[in-house]
């Protein structure tokens, strides 16, 4: 009880403290400087808020449309006010798709992909950055160059090859390639250049640490903000991966969320009622935002925090 009272007291004090604090600052820096600061802060926050509004538009629209009737969406596609069809849309969506199965399939595949990609990309990037071996530059250039080949036609051969090695209609065909995530390796290799101090590695060796230990205890943690950043992107890409899953998976029980939602597009309901579709979109975005919030912990929050770590 005392704690609660204390807390309430603190809350009461807060505005006064703030005012006192501002007054203090004002006295310290003088009127002119103070006014300047207020103006700068206000314009910065104003600019940021405008940017926030612009960024929020599609998200809010999807959310709102998830609560509106198909009729209303058809007649007026853009609206920032909710409707009363949230439950109905959810019911319709469930009628046409197996959301639960899709959700767990997606979750399994995306999590596996993210873990594999994070670990092996870090390992590969570390290998490229720390060790001077003959083929280093050539192999690195090789994979970066391969990244430049347009992949729109790649699935033509991909299915055939998967058929040869027996991976058609398996989750493995979607998960294993994560071990070789070229973009992430490229990023982490660049990132390591800014964060891993080679002298630290050297002194660890002096202390008798072996290379595997060094990677896990020094390399990996130092690259963590970069790995977390890339993991967010990897997770999102895998979560939204439609074409890859479409090409590989044949059995409905293995279908991921995007494939399940696509069922809706192949149905007549698509023309008549887009409400459930937005509901589906909303459901597929939600886990990503959660992931974002989880991984954000590992991202560095401000330049000051980073400096302490570095």
């Amino acid at each position: 009880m005392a704690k609660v009272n204390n807390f309430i007291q603190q809350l009461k004090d807060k505005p006064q403290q703030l005012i006192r604090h501002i007054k203090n600052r004002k006295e310290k820096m003088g009127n002119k400087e103070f006014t300047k600061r207020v103006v700068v802060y206000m314009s910065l926050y104003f600019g940021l808020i405008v940017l926030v509004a612009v960024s929020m538009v599609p998200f809010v629209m999807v959310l709102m449309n998830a609560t509106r009737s198909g009729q209303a969406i058809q007649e007026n596609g853009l609206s920032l006010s909710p409707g009363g069809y949230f439950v109905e849309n959810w019911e319709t969506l469930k009628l046409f798709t197996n959301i639960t199965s899709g959700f767990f399939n997606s979750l399994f595949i995306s999590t596996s992909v993210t873990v594999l990609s994070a670990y092996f990309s870090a390992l590969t990037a570390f290998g490229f950055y720390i060790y001077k071996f003959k083929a280093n530059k050539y192999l690195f250039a090789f994979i970066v160059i391969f990244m430049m080949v347009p992949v729109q036609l790649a699935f033509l051969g991909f299915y055939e090859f998967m058929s040869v090695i027996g991976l058609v209609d398996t989750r493995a065909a979607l998960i294993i390639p994560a071990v070789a995530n070229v973009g992430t390796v490229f990023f982490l290799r660049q990132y390591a250049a800014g964060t891993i101090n080679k002298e630290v590695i050297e002194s660890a060796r002096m202390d008798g640490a072996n290379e595997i230990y060094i990677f896990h205890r020094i390399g990996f943690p130092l690259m963590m903000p970069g790995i977390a950043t890339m993991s967010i992107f990897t997770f999102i890409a895998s979560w939204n991966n439609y074409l890859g899953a479409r090409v590989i998976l044949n059995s409905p029980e293995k279908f991921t969320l995007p494939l399940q939602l696509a069922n809706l597009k192949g149905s007549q309901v698509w023309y008549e009622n887009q409400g459930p579709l937005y509901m589906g979109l909303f459901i597929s975005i939600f886990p990503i935002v959660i992931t974002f919030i989880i991984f954000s912990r590992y991202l560095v929050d401000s330049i000051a925090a980073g400096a302490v770590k570095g």
Partner: protein
Amino acid sequence: MEKQYAKYGYIFITPFFLVFLIFSIYPIFYTLYLSFTDYNGFVDPIWIGLKNYKLVFGDAKFWKALTNTIRIWGVNIVLQLGLAFILVMIFSDLKYRIKGLKVFRIVFYLPNLIAAASVALIFVKLLNKDYGVVNTLLFRFNLITKTIPWLEKSMLAQLSVSNIQTWMWFGNSFILFMAAIQAVNKETIESAVIDGAGRLAIMRHIKLPLIKPILIYVAITGLIGGLQLFDIPLLITDGYGAPEGGLNTVILYLFNHAFKYGNFGYAAAIAYVLFVFILLISIIFLIIVNRSNIKEYLSLRRARKEAKVNG
């Protein structure tokens, strides 16, 4: 010393290359093979040698598509990186501490979470000339007297798409830059401030060099992604890149050849011509970015040579 560790380099990158060879190389070489064939997607490919490539080089529509793509990408990359830089400067400023980075970071990334198909759907409804929301609002507030053809005149449509792309991707660049900038030492900046360095000078001489590796990553992947742009133009036009062919990008052209006209061989050739183009631009970019290193390297080599001659 270095040499005894070299083997770990190979060990560390082996899993990557094993999987890479199995899953990525085959489709890529298959596409390469297709580019030398006539293939409609159903009947077996027929080998026709370099004919597809000859056709690509003589195809005015391909070259127009390439210029379109470069224009859309050029405007987009300047805006996108510019905006990300400004945000980085704001959030990494030591004097003005802006609160709420965690929230802003997520919100700025939101446009990228929505599938391109929905993004296109939204913008078609917003930017339609005769019935769009934007023109309706402008009209209602008497800001225009004639509807603006956002997506119907070549130049304006290209500009619109550049902006849509910027809107979709600035959050991504911002997050990557912020991840990189944490490596910058706070004390270095503080002492620079004491020495009277301005914000731009700090950006240019301290922050920029430190995030250069990441900048290279963002630029190269931005180049690859930008020159391979196609979903938005596909979805906000008739699917062929009207108006006036202004939104016909290289990959859209490739896509249509493959999946609408059943010309997989020709599409594959377009893919490889674009690949070579991206490679060339990347090399030029890397030379420009690393020109001081290269100069240093060359002069070092010259010095060594001279030393040898003299010695």
